[in-house]
Structure formats: structure tokens, C-alpha cells
């Protein structure tokens, strides 16, 4: 059962220290009457972003081109895809080999092949990821909120016992970690709307349990002492205070989260073994399972990342073919199962799944064909070893985005890319701002929805100018 009747107001009444904080001088407030947002009928209540951090090569995944098998002496400029293509359940959509399970559910979704990442003058993964997640390019004089924070702030949680913005799978202790931290925040919207981090889905349960080593009964006793000392504290004599009230409310809502029946969703050990095993391709797969469980109890926005670590996962600077085969194994079963499970539970119609990456990859072009940037990867013109075989440069002129459920068309292909290098968009390109406008619209938020900070408006899409791609909606 999904408690869908909770609305923002209930949350603010119960959990919402935020209500007070947002009203405060210098804190953000709604920028203006949002007539557009009022009129939009949302097609989704929940969003799940499946993040392919590091740059997922579309020609190796959802937009396969001519396949050339590896042999020593192969010229780099002859290779467009390093895998053969396979059929999906949709006639005009082919995938790269290794994604057959997602291919089997493609009739539930929309595929954009012409996503174009911004030109930022240089390829820096974290900066492109910052842009994808906020719509703004750093450095910024005002901290931009993450997509999930915009949604948490504007819509509140679906269920007040479940944090509105949950971020699964990203750790912040390796290269570019600070750059990642800079956009995994609610920015100027304030901490209340920031991410609830679950770095490791297998340990998700710990994030809603008493601290390690503390028994349940000790946890309860400790809270009782807190309440008892509170009741006896002479601070009552200072009268009513909003600072104190905000503290007490926040403690109550934290305690409610930790003791709520919804908290069981974090416990993957409660999942039947056969289902767990389908998802268990590693951290990412289990993240998808956790996302599904959280959807069932009323999460609002969830991001599951394959995790961005420089030169790891999708950031294939060499040995791209071999590594991409593994990466496809990592995502194929869990993504397909997520779609099927949500469908089976009647949740897919109101849950928008977005699978995306900051940009695509190519063997030769760095950036855009007409606007190349400094090469960061040495690519030999003639391959002599298997490790040369793969998409090792960063390509921003076309990439793939998959959308399932949440009011999007089913079995629909949007945009065409060239069949010869450069495999750039040749029809219906979609930039980040318009992609965001589309996602926000599905959630019922107008692209010019915004909040005022330091007396100036800050919009969910840059300058409020995003245009939803209406062709994508069913």
C-alpha cells in the first residue's frame, strides 16, 4: 500500500522545522505565484534517477552502430561499436549486446538518443555531473540545489516517515569527491531538503537503526531519559520559542523515521532470496532493489548511482570493451527487474525512472565534433592490444536517456543519431535544461518555478527557460 494522500502541508505540520526556516529572513521563499505549477497535472509522484556516473557510451549500450570485431592492427576510426546489436521487444529499437533484459521491457519506456550535454569548455566529469544534477554550472555565487532537493522542497515527501530525497551508492572519499559533495546538497534551499545518504545499500538498514553496538532497548531508554530531562528542564520558564520548538520537532521526526514501519524498507534482508539474487549484481543492483522497496513505502525522489570514481565504472579510459561488458551485466537485470516489480505492484504508472549519464563516449572525438576540447585520453590510430578497443574519449553531441513509467510514452524512440562518425544528433536534440523541464513537468513542477534568495529568483531550470519535451508524454 502506498500512502499517497500525504501532502506537503501535513509534512510541514509534523516534521517541518523547515517550514520555519524557509520563512526566515535571508532564507529562500517562493519566488512568485506559480500559476503554471498550479495548472500542471503531474504524471508521476515519485522519481528514480539511475545514474551512470562517468560517461556511458551510447554506441555500446542503447544506440548501437556498425559493429567491428577486434583484431590487432584495427584502425581506430573504423570502429563505431565494439558489440553487435540485438533486438528489443520494440521493432525500431536495437540495443547493444548484453542488455537483453532491459530490451525485454523497452515496451514500457521511452528512449531518448539525442541527449546533448553542455559545452563547458573542458571535460571534467564532476562539473558535467554538477550541471546535469542542478541545471547550473559551477562556480556559482549561490549554491544550486540538486534535482532531488528541488523536488523535496517543492513537493515534500510522499510519506512523512520517509526522507523526501534519498541518495544511494555514492561515496565521497576519492578523487573529485569535493566536487561531488558540492552538488549533492540542497544548496540555498537549506539542509532540510538535502539528501539522506545511503552510501552502501547493503548497509542501508544501519542508517535507520540505533548506532552500531546499541541495542533496541538501550536506544529506547536513552530516548526516555532525553524526554524525561526535557520535561524537567527549567527552560520552560523562558516561554515559547521557535528555536526550541524547531529542535524538539526535529528530534521527534527523526525518532519517528527511525521507529516507523516504513524503516523496514531499508532492510534488504527482508527481501525473498530469489528476488534479491536477481538484483544482486553488486552495489548498483542492490541500490535498485532498495529504491524499489523505498518506492513502495512512499519515497519521493531517489537516486541510485553506479558511482562515480575517476577511471572506474563508466569512466572507461582504456579497456573499454571488456569493462563495458561487465557494466552492462551490472545494470541489465536490476534495471529490468525494477521496471517489472514496480509494474507488478501497480506503481510504475506513477513512478518515473530515469536512466542517464553526464555524457556519452567515443573512440576519437573529445567533446562535440564542431566544438572539440582538449584530448584527455591518448588513443592510438591503430590498435595493437585489446585494451585499446573501446570508447575512451568523452563525447557530448549525443547520448542516451531511458525513461520508464511516470506518464512517458511506451515503446517510443525519440531522436536520431548519425550512423557514421561523428554519431551526433541529427533530429530532435534534447539539452539538459529541456530534459530537466520534462522531468519537473512530469512531477507537476513548472520550469519557471523558483524560489527567491538574496532577493533574486532562482528557478528549477536555468533562468526559468526550460521547455518540456511534450512528445515524450503519453
Amino acid at each position, binding site marked *: 500500500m502506498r500512502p499517497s494522500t500525504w501532502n506537503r502541508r501535513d509534512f510541514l505540520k509534523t516534521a517541518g*522545522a*523547515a517550514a*520555519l*526556516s524557509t*520563512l*526566515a*529572513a*535571508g*532564507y529562500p521563499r*517562493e519566488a512568485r505565484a506559480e500559476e503554471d505549477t498550479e495548472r500542471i497535472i503531474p504524471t508521476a509522484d515519485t522519481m528514480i534517477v539511475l545514474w551512470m556516473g562517468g560517461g556511458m557510451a551510447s554506441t555500446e549500450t542503447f544506440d548501437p552502430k556498425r559493429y567491428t570485431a577486434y583484431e590487432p592492427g584495427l584502425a581506430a576510426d573504423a570502429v563505431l561499436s565494439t558489440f553487435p546489436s540485438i533486438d528489443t521487444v520494440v521493432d525500431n529499437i536495437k540495443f547493444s549486446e548484453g542488455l537483453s533484459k532491459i530490451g525485454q521491457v523497452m515496451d514500457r519506456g521511452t528512449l531518448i538518443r539525442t541527449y546533448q550535454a553542455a*559545452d563547458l*569548455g573542458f571535460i*571534467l566529469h564532476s*562539473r558535467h555531473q554538477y550541471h546535469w544534477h542542478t541545471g547550473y*554550472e*559551477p*562556480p*556559482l*555565487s*549561490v*549554491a544550486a540545489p540538486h534535482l532531488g532537493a528541488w523536488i523535496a522542497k517543492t513537493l515534500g515527501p510522499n510519506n512523512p516517515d520517509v*526522507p523526501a530525497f534519498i541518495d544511494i551508492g555514492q561515496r565521497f572519499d576519492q578523487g573529485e569527491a*569535493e566536487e561531488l*559533495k*558540492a552538488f549533492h*546538497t540542497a544548496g540555498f534551499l537549506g*539542509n*532540510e531538503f*538535502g539528501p539522506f545518504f545511503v552510501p552502501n545499500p547493503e548497509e542501508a538498514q544501519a542508517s535507520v*537503526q540505533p548506532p552500531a*553496538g*546499541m541495542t533496541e532497548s*538501550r536506544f529506547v531508554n*536513552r530516548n526516555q*531519559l*532525553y524526554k524525561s*530531562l526535557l520535561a*524537567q*528542564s*527549567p*527552560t520552560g520558564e*523562558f516561554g515559547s*520559542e*521557535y*528555536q*526550541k520548538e*524547531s*529542535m524538539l*520537532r*526535529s*528530534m521527534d*521526526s*527523526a*525518532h519517528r*523515521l*527511525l521507529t516507523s514501519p516504513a524503516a523496514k524498507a531499508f532492510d534488504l534482508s527482508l527481501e525473498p532470496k530469489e528476488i534479491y539474487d536477481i538484483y544482486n549484481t553488486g552495489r548498483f543492483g542492490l541500490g535498485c532493489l532498495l529504491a524499489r522497496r523505498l518506492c513502495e513505502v512512499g519515497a519521493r525522489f531517489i537516486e541510485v548511482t553506479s558511482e562515480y570514481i575517476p577511471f572506474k565504472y563508466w569512466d572507461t579510459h582504456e579497456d573499454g570493451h571488456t569493462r563495458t561488458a561487465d557494466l552492462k551485466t551490472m545494470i541489465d537485470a536490476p534495471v529490468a527487474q525494477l521496471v517489472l516489480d514496480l509494474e507488478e505492484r501497480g506503481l510504475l504508472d506513477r513512478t518515473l525512472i530515469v536512466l542517464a549519464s553526464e555524457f556519452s563516449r567515443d573512440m576519437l572525438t573529445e567533446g562535440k565534433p564542431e566544438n572539440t576540447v582538449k584530448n584527455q585520453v591518448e588513443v592510438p590510430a591503430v590498435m595493437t592490444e585489446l585494451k585499446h578497443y573501446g570508447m575512451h574519449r568523452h563525447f557530448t553531441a549525443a547520448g542516451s536517456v531511458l525513461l520508464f513509467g511516470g506518464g512517458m510514452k511506451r515503446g517510443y524512440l525519440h531522436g536520431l543519431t548519425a550512423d557514421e562518425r561523428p554519431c551526433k544528433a541529427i533530429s530532435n536534440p534534447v539539452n539538459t535544461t529541456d530534459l530537466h523541464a520534462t522531468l519537473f513537468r512530469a512531477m507537476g513542477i513548472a520550469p519557471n518555478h523558483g524560489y*527567491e534568495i*538574496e*532577493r*533574486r529568483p532562482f528557478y528549477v531550470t536555468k533562468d526559468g527557460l526550460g521547455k518540456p519535451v511534450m512528445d515524450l508524454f503519453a
Partner: protein
Amino acid sequence: MLSGIPCLSRLLCLAAFGVIVSCGAALAQELPPAANRPVDFDTEIHPLLAERCFQCHGGGQSRGGLQMDSRELLLNGGDSGPVVVEGKSGESRLISLVAGLDPELIMPPKGPQLTPEEVGILRAWIDQGLVWHETKTEAAAYVASVTPRRPELPAAKEGASANPIDRFLDAYYALHSVTPSASVSDAVFLRRASLDVTGLVPQPADLDAFLADTDPEKYAKAADRLLGDRLAYAEHWMTFWNDALRNDFQGTGYIDGGRKQITQWLFDALYNNLPYDQFASQLINPSAESEGFVNGIIWRGVTAAAMVPPMQAAQSVSQVFLGVNLKCASCHDSFVDHWKLADSYGMASVFSDGAMELVRCDVPQGETAQIKFLWPEVGRVDPKRSLAGRRAQLARLLTSEENGFFARAIVNRIWAKFMGRGLVEPLDVIENEPWNADLLDWLASDLVDHGYDLKHTMKLILTSQAYRLPSVDTPPDSQNAYVFRGPEVKRMTAEMFLDTLSSLTGAWQENPQFAVPEPPKKKDEQPKPPVIRAWRVNSDPLTRAMGRPNREQVVTRRQSLATALEAVELTNGQTLSSHLQRGAESLLAAPPASPEDLVSSIYRHALQRDVTESEKAAAAQMVGSPVTKEGFEDFLWALAMQPEFQLIY
């Protein structure tokens, strides 16, 4: 007043006016009669309005949505409709209100009721067509001037505090009908002062000595002692200045040389109490140790024109040192204040290697920016000078005694740090009207007179009667015009919270990123674990949740209200849990105390008061007898979660 306050409290006011609507016209026959003669606006009406109405409805104030600054505004009425009907005083709600027909709601709400004669004069004025003349006595729109002002210090009242702040405030209280409350207890004073100056609660021995001291000068002595603890002072104020100067051990840009720390320079400046004009100068025209601030943060790739490093320098310098927000005007002429694109580029050009081209909303204008200080009347920067020469000139202009905003901005920040709210709000819009311009300007000129010694201004505040007033807790959405009645309730920062916990247990942070001078060891002293305060370590999930900013942007005030995510981190996060475990271990390593004694001493140290018997019983039971480590951890947690622990009353 601040713009941008939404309608929660306006609704409350509106509801109050709603009551009035129903009874006004119906009871018209009970009103005092209108004066039977022509009335004069200038000599009869305006003085009456000014004295009895304008405090809430004049000078831009609009309680209940009603403004009376002009005839037109008066006719516009309030949130619930018109208040005057031209020519018909009997149907004008204003009249029924001031006549006091509804004993529940009489205007004005304070002071004596209007006399029947006064009501009659107002009725006649309405009946005779609401004649309105512009008068000189109407509050002119406030215009902040760059020229410093040196208001005369009011004479101290007989028997009242001679502290200059109190001398200004005594006049202010009289004007605003405020009766100052009795001072807080000495224990509350010392907690406040210790936390505000050093970020730590008082040591029990210091508290005892202070309470026992009968010298009337003991408040000044306490201020001197706290301000004189240069290490504790510097460590506490590092947090504030790191936020403002966006300096940290970690952050974007460091990975590839796009950013540089100024930690050592900043610590030394605070430790040595570098005069503030030199402090600013050394950041604006920096050495290798202090250049990180104006160099800004550089991400690889193309940067939008409004965020190129010289523009970042213009924004940061203006915001931090002048209380001027150039962010809007970095992209186009500002819509919300008078700053122009050319002003931002004028400042940015000081920091630019070559001439800058004006770019408006990402479109180059084909026009070269002219180098310029924000207030050209203070002086100019010579474009022919070298980069270092221009920065030196800017530093001189900015810290010049002709530039009133430099000193105003910092005394306003200090006032806000101690009193919870600035003399001008927001802190970064210094050109807004202060609630006491004389006090602001006097404090600013006094700072200049005292060699820009910030500790001098701090001591003035600490030794004022105003600082010892009971705290008030003004909701941030309050629609009422702000009236100073005492310091606002403040909340400890993440750093203060952790340091206070550490000072109770002796378990400090681990993995410091910076070395501070070690205090001299006393003879025969047992070796103690090093005091590593929270500012010296990298941010972690706990400190971030409690509001330590990531320092990618200038932050001059942290958000202090508690959030649910923060409470989750406090309740089950591993960071605090480990800290408490180490704390319990550290404290229990000492010779065992009875649970009651342990609880009593912790209470007194943490809250500067004796534990009550019932608190002691509950806590001692948790602590266990003999004391258990787990029980003690849980007691510490339950205590640390108390508003009384985390708030500064």
C-alpha cells in the same frame, strides 16, 4: 524592513482586522461627533497621525497591510479592505477603531485612547474630503550615505549605565515604549559571553570565581579575560571567518590548483588580533599566504562571465567587507537595488590582469569596463597601475575613513554575532535602514577611533546592559517591525556543540588538519590529550548536517534552525556515537565518582546550574551504579540533545 517575508503573520493581522469590519458602520451612532469646523491637516491631523499611527502604519510600516504614508495609501486600506470612506466618517472603519467601539480591538493598541475631541477632528477631516499635504516631517526614505557619521553620544541618565550602547538605547527604549527587563543572572551572562567570545562554556572554576566576585567591574573583567584568551578566541572565530572567506581544508578546486587555503594567515591574524583595516587590506592586496580569498575558486573549463575570478573577487570583497551584494549586478543592472553592471565590472577590473569587456547576461557588449570603486566620491583606482598597485589602491579606499560602510559592515556583523540580529538586516545589505542608525554609526566611528580593534567593539557590547537583557526569540517570519528588546536566542554551531561536549569529557577531535600553538605546560602537570577543536578537522556528516557549510560560497550567517536530517544524524549517526564513546572512556578513566556526583558536576559544567533532585535521580539511574560506560554515554547524549544545552539563552 526586509522584503520577502511571506504571509503567515500577515494572515494573523488580517484576522484581527476582520473582526473590526463587522462592527464599524453598525455602531456609527455611538461615535463622538465630528468637529464642527474646518480642520487643518498640517497642524492638527498630521501631528496626530504621526504620534499615534505612524509607528505601525508609517515610514514604510504596514501592520495589517495598512500604510498611511500618503493619502493614496490610506485610501488603499489594509488587508481586509478600505479603512476610510471619503466624506463619510461614520462609515470609516478607522473612526470606529480609534473611538474604541470594540473593547477587544482599539487603535492605537498602545498608549492612551484617543480623546472624543481627537476622534471628532479626524471625523471632520474625513468628512471634509481628506485633505493631504506633503510635509517635511514625514519620514523620508532612508538613504545610506557612504560618508561616516559621528553622532553625539547621549548623556548617561542619572543612575543608568554609562556604556555608550546603553546611552543610545535608553533614548531608543523611550521612543519605542520599551521597558528594559532586569538583567539575566550572572551564570547566564557568563555562559553567553564565554560561548560568544570563545565558543566554549565556562570552566566550573571560572564560573565559581565569577559568581563569588562582588566587584561591580566583574563583567568588564570577565570580558577582558575571555577576549584575552587569544587561542580560544582565535579558534572560535576561525569558524566565522572560514565561512565568510570560504576557506576550508577541503573543497572544490584544491584537486588541481584552482584554489588555495589561507588558514595559516587567517589563524595568525585572529591570534594576533590584527587590526581590521589591515586584515581587510591583506586579503584584498594579498601576500602568497592570503591570496586564496581574492583568487577565488576555479573549475577547469569555460566559466560564465559573471563568475570569472576577477568578478568573484569583486563579489566576495564587496559582500564580506562592505555588506554590498553585487551578484545580480555581475550579470546585468540589478533589479533589486541601485548597483549597475558597470559597478561590478568597475570593481572586477581592479583584480583583472587586462581590461575586461562588459558582458550582459552572457552577451558581450563590445564595451571596455572602466575601473571604478563603488563610491567614486571616496576616491579612484588608477587603471594604469599594475595589478598589485590597483589592489593596494582599492584596499586603501575600502578601508579609508571616508568610506563609512567598511566600519559599519563589521560592527553590524559583530553586533549580530553577539545579539543574534544585526542593527541592519540582512547583514549583506548594509544600505538598508538600521533600526538605530545613530548607534550603528557611533559604533562604526568608535571602531575607527580605536584603531580597528574588533575586540574593543566586542568589549563594549559585552559590558553593556543591553547584552545582559533576557533573551528574546523573534520568529523569523515576524511581520512586526523589529524592536530591540534584548539578544535573540541563538543556537550553538556544530563546532560549538562538539567543542562543548569535548570540554565536558576531555575527548577532543582526531586527525587535525592544522597545528595551533600549544599552551605552556604547568610544572608537574600530567600529560593531557591535545585539545583539538572541531574547526581543525575536516567536515563530516555530523558537522555538515549541523550546518557547517561546504564553503563553496561566502556564508556570513548560518541557518540555525534544526532539521530532521540533522536530528537523524544526532540520533543514530556514527560520528556522534563514537565521539560520545571516547568521551565516556576519557571521563571514566579518572578516579570513580558516585553517579550522583558525576551527574551533578556535568550539569554544572554544561548548563551553569545545579541539577535538580529529580533530574539527578533520572540521570543517575541511567548512568548506573557503579557507573557504566554505556550508561554514561547515554546520559551525555540525552543531555546534549536538550535545548538548554544547545541554545544560548
